[in-house]
């Protein structure tokens, strides 16, 4: 079974703090993704990575950065947390080759509250 784990289920941070969200997958997937989910807005892609040290911006990258130093680990960084970044953050991973399904496997999510 594919397993995607996230470092925290719940996190409370203060405005201006630097926040690290960690995601680890154990299936040797090439692609990893970070989404945020807010009521009424569905899933919005923040960043994704298709290889070590590679990253691409998604739909809402502002205020975020990412790091992928190892294939199994993908980190989301909030450089200076703000209250509008209070949200549920979901990490996912998938295969990349075009001939294979791109089914994404999701982690349990991190509910971040910025006060």
């Amino acid at each position: 079974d594919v397993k995607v784990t996230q470092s925290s289920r719940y996190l409370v941070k203060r405005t201006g703090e630097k926040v690290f969200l960690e995601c680890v997958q154990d299936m040797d997937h090439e692609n990893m993704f970070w989404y945020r989910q807010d009521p009424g807005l569905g899933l919005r892609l923040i960043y994704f990575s298709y290889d070590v040290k590679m990253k691409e911006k998604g739909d809402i990258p502002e205020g975020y950065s990412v790091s992928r130093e190892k294939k199994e680990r993908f980190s989301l960084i909030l450089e200076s947390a703000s209250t509008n970044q209070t949200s549920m953050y979901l990490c996912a991973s998938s295969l990349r080759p075009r001939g294979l399904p791109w089914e994404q496997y999701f982690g349990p999510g991190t509910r971040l509250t910025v006060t």
Partner: protein
Amino acid sequence: ELKVEQNPLFLSMQEGKNYTIYCNYSTTSDRLYWYRQDPGKSLESLFVLLSNGAVKQEGRLMASLDTKARLSTLHITAAVHDLSATYFCAVDDYGGSQGNLIFGKGTKLSVKP
């Protein structure tokens, strides 16, 4: 721009009834995915449909794919309360970066006694 539209977005139904959720998409993708999300939880994969005419069933849920119509349906038979959740469909974004999925907004299903 690739779009994935689900309808309805909200569905309240009684136990024992049947209903269908629709997922329309605007690209020529031949692969479609259905996910379930319980309140406060993450997304769980339900079905992976990989070709035109594909049909998959799990319990009271059945999903099908018509790539010519660019339409997938998720049919619920004799609904029970345990099916209350939000259901998302997603398609491969062949026009974008390899491996991306485009998600619909989700259909929030509430099954009442």
